[in-house]
């Protein structure tokens, strides 16, 4: 069955520079630099990437960073907690708008 998302397409990520080399090369150089050990370790960045992947719901990123985070030694429980952080922020982001709703209702209600 054809789908919009194909796991094999993850391997083609690097080919994105084919259509626009200059920007593609710059992006991948930047991407590589971002994930190097620095003030945060590559290991810590991997867990952040996993959480963000869930927040943006990118199946490619979830595939890549589930493997990467586990390979870098994070346990299943730690990885799931990172996903819950993403979930809490996403859920909280919706819920916090409830304040706007409350403000509006209070404005118009008798």
């Amino acid at each position, binding site marked *: 069955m054809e789908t919009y998302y194909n796991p094999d397409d993850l391997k083609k990520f690097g080919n994105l520079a084919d259509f626009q080399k200059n920007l593609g090369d710059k992006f991948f150089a930047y991407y590589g630099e971002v994930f190097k*050990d620095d003030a945060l370790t*590559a290991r810590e960045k991997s867990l952040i990437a996993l959480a963000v992947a869930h927040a943006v719901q990118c199946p490619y990123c979830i595939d890549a960073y589930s493997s990467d985070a*586990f*390979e870098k030694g994070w346990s299943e429980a730690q990885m799931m907690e990172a996903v819950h952080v993403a979930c809490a922020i996403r859920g909280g982001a919706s819920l916090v708008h409830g304040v706007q709703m409350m403000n509006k209702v209070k404005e118009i209600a008798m």
Partner: protein
Amino acid sequence: MKSLLAEHSRLAIASEQIDILEHGQSPGYRLIPFQQQLEASGLYPLHPTTLEVFQVNVGKMCNQVCKHCHVDAGPDRKEIMSQETMQLCLEALKNNPSLKTVDITGGAPEMNPHFRWFVEAIKKLDRHIIVRCNLTIILANSKYNHLPEFYKQHQVEVVSSLPFYTQDRTDRQRGNGVFEDSIKALQMLNGVGYGLEETGLTLNLVYNPAGAFLPPSQLALEKEYKTALSNQYGIAFNNLFAITNLPISRFLDYLLQSGNYEKYMEKLLMAYNPVAAANVMCRNTISVGWDGYLYDCDFNQMLDLKLSGSCRHIAQFNTEKLQNREIIVGQHCYGCTAGAGSSCGGAVA
């Protein structure tokens, strides 16, 4: 858990493993031959550089049955090196001073009844000795409790597997209770000075992935191991070797049973590193099997890929011939050339 041999698995037969490695299991499977990769890197045929390491597998008997073991070792394996074969090893060492390091492996090498005699005899030849100790053997029986003192007495370099610094990952791979015993054994080794600065007693640990993935950066992982083991258990060690699991024997069985085989092989291929290929350990090592046959490495040994020609057995040991041999390669070799490379001493690139 039993060995594949005891379970009468077809993977206990080396030729069956090679068949899977070469042809896979699904009809459309095709992986670029390793030989072709080496050719593209200008390394085929692969020849030794300088023979320096004499690796002796003194037997397949082990107190553990690890899920990733490429030897298919365990308590039910009875193949161990005889004292006569060890004597032939000593003669080969005596006649070849360029073999500076003797790397003793198994199974659990300490379970060979001639192990201590062998170590003492090698020491008299003034060679550097490495023993691949699985740690739990030290606590397995009171007769092994004094191994740390024995190692110290003979200035043996101890290299020990500790797949991870957490109990969960270690026990998953090596069996329940292994982590706890490994920690106790490490504390005993530290107790006689192993792994501590200025003692000259080297204790190196080995990481290998608990699953179908490649090791992360050896350097970064070493830092994490040192911090975690020191903070939680007061343990010190020298270096960490990050080793890739080769698709052989029990790890191959795991890959096939979990449906990861083809993806793992592809991962190894994608990570092929010509620099690692140029530095593979088989270029400076010769491997001796429990029955005295010679191999390019411990992995070729388990795949029964014996050296060809007139120098096939320790009784025929001839450095010149070994130096000029062509190293036997196969699809499993992708495991040693992926990423930063992998050897008995960890990363090579």
